[in-house]
């Protein structure tokens, strides 16, 4: 049936109204996202139709293949020049395919692949009734401590839904930094947030804490989403469009044709400032910047550790990507207004994260506050508003995400009778018992602390250099001071592991399957390679550091 035939049912007059064109979709350029979404849908079908005993293997296979294929697609697009010369807008202006987008998508996909390995780990917990179990609840709907939970555990149920949830989250994250209009941005935000809320609630051990974390994350996340949406609405009122390019033009004052329906509000700076504030607030919530960081420690602590690792790495990458694009593409004309605010946010984030982390006694909370401090460092690069600022942030994100996933993967290994032994006192003397695991964790901590010859130093140097060149020298000094503060608590953990006497009833280090070993190995390798020979990746980041508009 042709389009004209449909229309004839609705029109009586002879004069032809303008035809609605079928949207032009560049499937090739969108393939990374499409592959992941497709695999997620397949994952749902697997959940429905594949017998319980083979679901785990089917899901892991589907997810791994999809993430690898999507990464290959990103590489192919980049090799084809979509990151540089052929960069452009796809899907009717909804998605940008350019250097930053592809770089961040590649990072997210690799981080997700490594994260998937930790999701799929089934050797850490002792077998329950002869069934291998992973870090996730046997049956999410069973009330903690109830008979039905015991029955689910006994039956050997596992929540294999985590894999499609992971894929949906990844799909949202892929779109988030490449969204080129505010509605797509919002949809992507929800697409990756909702699965994450669920994943947070699915811990096998300490389920109440996990559910509490999920509720907190959901409530605060919903507020943040609402703010974002409100901001989008105000920006629409200001500019008459949700498209990044159009808003940017209105901000610059180069638009002459005023939408008659919006004549009363268009160009009203109050709307612009309020809308920007609300929108950026939503994004800062996702990156975990002070003062929108309150959720981070609770959620990081309560969520199953593989989820925490994935979330800490990939969400940060996606959210910073979106923040960069919004600030650099939509609001460059407003930078004299947002830069002072972001200065303040960066300063309190760096100092706040570092100072509060000192008092933490739980390794996961410690890493949460450390991630807040790192968000502050990255913001210093964002503020630079130079091409170097973009590429340094890209590099930092890539470096940081692998350290983070590796570090949380190590956390999953240190266990006692109650599951993971996350209280810091239990890590005492780990270096005596398991020198290798402690040494690996020390490498990650040194990278977090930004010691030279680790990726953390290269990243930190890149963002601070960009900030200094962008005229933010005081920010660099504060960054350096908070690095020193942060170094204190990283070092404290190392002291604890190597110089304290092991406790007699201390935790044991589980021997993981090759999956977690791969995740940790990749983390260590990336940390050292990016620390010693960062040139290739810095090149890549600087080539990718141009936004299409």
């Amino acid at each position, binding site marked *: 049936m042709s389009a004209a035939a449909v229309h004839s049912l609705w029109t009586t007059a002879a004069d032809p109204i303008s035809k609605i064109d079928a949207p032009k979709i560049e499937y090739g350029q969108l393939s990374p996202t499409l592959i992941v979404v497709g695999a997620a849908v397949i994952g749902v079908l697997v959940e429905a139709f594949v017998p319980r005993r083979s679901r785990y293997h089917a899901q892991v296979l589907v997810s791994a293949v999809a993430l690898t294929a999507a990464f290959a697609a990103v590489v192919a697009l980049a090799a084809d020049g979509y990151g540089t010369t052929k960069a452009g807008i796809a899907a009717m202006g909804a998605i940008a395919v350019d250097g930053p987008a592809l770089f961040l998508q590649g990072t997210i996909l690799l981080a997700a692949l490594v994260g998937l390995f930790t999701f799929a780990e089934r050797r850490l917990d002792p077998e329950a009734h002869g069934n291998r179990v992973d870090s996730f609840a046997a049956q999410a709907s069973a009330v903690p401590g109830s008979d039905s939970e015991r029955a689910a555990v006994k039956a050997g149920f596992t929540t294999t839904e985590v894999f499609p949830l992971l894929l949906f989250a990844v799909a949202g994250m892929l779109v988030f930094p490449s969204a080129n209009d505010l509605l797509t941005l919002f949809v992507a935000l929800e697409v990756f947030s909702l699965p994450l809320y669920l994943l947070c609630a699915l811990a096998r051990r300490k389920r109440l804490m996990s559910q509490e974390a999920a509720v907190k994350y959901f409530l605060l996340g919903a507020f943040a989403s609402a703010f974002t949406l409100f901001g989008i609405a105000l920006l629409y009122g200001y500019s008459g469009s949700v498209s990044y390019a159009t808003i940017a033009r209105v901000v610059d004052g180069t638009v002459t044709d005023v939408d008659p329906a919006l004549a009363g509000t268009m160009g009203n700076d109050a709307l612009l400032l309020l809308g920007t504030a609300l929108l950026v607030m939503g994004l800062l919530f996702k990156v975990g910047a002070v003062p929108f960081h309150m959720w981070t420690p609770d959620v990081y602590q309560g969520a199953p550790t593989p989820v925490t690792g994935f979330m800490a790495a990939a969400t940060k990458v996606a959210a910073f990507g979106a923040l960069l694009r919004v600030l650099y593409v939509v609001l460059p004309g407003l930078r004299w207004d947002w830069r002072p605010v972001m200065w303040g946010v960066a300063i309190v984030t760096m100092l706040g994260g570092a100072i509060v982390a000192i008092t933490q006694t739980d390794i996961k909370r410690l890493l949460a506050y450390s991630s807040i401090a790192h968000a502050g460092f990255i913001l210093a690069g964002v503020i630079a508003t130079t091409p170097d600022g973009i590429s340094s942030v890209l590099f930092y994100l890539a470096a940081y995400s692998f350290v983070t996933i590796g570090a949380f993967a190590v956390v999953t290994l240190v266990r006692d009778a109650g599951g993971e032994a996350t209280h810091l006192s239990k890590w005492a003397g780990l270096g005596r*018992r398991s020198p290798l695991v402690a040494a690996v964790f020390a490498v990650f901590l040194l990278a977090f602390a930004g010691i030279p010859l680790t990726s953390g130093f290269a990243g930190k140097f890149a963002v*601070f250099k960009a900030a200094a060149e962008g005229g933010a*020298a005081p920010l660099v000094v504060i960054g350096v001071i908070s690095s*020193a503060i942060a170094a204190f608590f990283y*070092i404290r953990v190392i002291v604890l592991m190597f110089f*304290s*006497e092991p406790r007699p009833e201390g935790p044991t280090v589980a021997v993981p399957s090759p999956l977690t070993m791969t995740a940790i190995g990749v983390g260590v390798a990336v940390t050292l390679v990016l620390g010693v020979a960062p040139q290739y990746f*810095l090149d890549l980041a600087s080539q990718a550091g141009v936004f299409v508009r």
Partner: protein
Amino acid sequence: MSFPLLTATAVLPAVGAIATAAVPAARRTAAKWLALLFTLATLALAVAVAVRFDPGGDRYQLTESHAWIAEFGVRYELGVDGIAVALIALTALLIPFIVLAGWHDADPLETGSRRWRPTQGFFALILAVEAMVILSFEATDVFLFYIFFEAMLIPMYFLIGGFGDRAHEHGEKAASTQRSYAAVKFLLYNLVGGLIMLAAVIGLYVVAGNFSLQEIAQARAAGTLDMATSTERWLFLGFFFAFAVKAPLWPLHTWLPNAMQESTAPVAVLITAVVDKVGTFAMLRFCLQLFPEASKWATPVILVLALISIIYGALLAVGQRDIKRLVAYASISHFGFIVLGIFAMTSQGQSGATLYMVNHGISTAALMLVAGFLISRRGSRLIADYGGVQKVAPVLAGTFLIGGLATLSLPGLAPFVSEFLVLVGAFTRYPAVGIVATFGIVLAALYTLVLYQRTMTGPVKPEVSAMPDLRVRELVVVAPLVVLLLFLGVYPKPVTDIVNPAVQQTLSDVHKKDPQPEVEAAK
């Protein structure tokens, strides 16, 4: 391309570190010999560097230059001047003695986990420190220098925190708490210094656009690279702060007594004789060359700090009850002399300071290592626990005395020459400073001789009556150091010949910006 001698000198100990760490847990002795072998091979390479170096030739020799991180304008650039050659030689010379002296320091007390291999770790860490120290002496790229300047903290930190004296007056648990306190203090002080330097390094890049010491120094001398006065001063302060922590200069010195007291004697030597030299060396190489005007601007304050270090360190050394702490405060006093010599801005002062770095390394090693042997025999670091040792262990007492006399700069021993040069250098420009500094020598005589008198002379204490004299291994460690002290005391020419041209050049860097016309004409 010629053989990259400088890289090889630094890579060899690094390879040695990896090889030593990889030795299986049960083959402890093999690991020790392997480590010793690598340090000796490194010494051979360092000698080759010294031989190939032509004191009358270019300023930087044996240079290597490769692209590394173009994005940051960082190159892998190595090159040595006379000062660096002397310090590389010192480092390579001392490390084998440190290894030999620490032969039993890291034998495991009780069998922990099968995979716990403290011995291998101890020697691997020493080799790692050696590699990084040598690289930081060689680097002529500021960023490259910074990387190793910072990275060497990590192995040092584990050496201090992980290995201590066997016996401790308050038991093993208290010892381990104090050790980790000392290690953390060491690391935090130096890390903060390093991070502040990082801000200055970034600032330097923003101003200069690259990190090459030679390029920046030339551009500054030629006047093509302008720095606002305030910028130069801030950058200078950023660099100097880090070096002053490392050196250590009063009031940033408080980590040193803790670190030296808690670590084993060989590690204490490693800290004060080798690692700390990077700080004073970097003042000469980076502060003076990159920021000549700011260096002159800051000179009065730095001289005062150096004087305070000299007097304060010596006074506190007099009051110590702990042998190792005493040596630590003596070192602080000596570092005051070195800084004084550098910032006196005279050729005698700077030659003396460089020579002082070498001589202080050797004399402190001799004194501290013998003190370590003494402490390991009695199981106590307290001076009051000893007495009359020279009657039961005359060789030990004799070498201890020579180390002590070297520390107080007795004429005829190496440190006398350098201390004399420093004082002369200070006198010619700042007579008052020279006079005050001289009191440091008087105090040095006091703390050294009182230490000797209390521990070695007098009635034999019952606890030391059965003390064995130096063993063969210990003699092998001490004898060459004593010979060196005597040799360089009588004939310092080999070192001064290498050092002097470099000092002249450094000095001309600082003065080149002087407005006097005759300096311009000379150029």
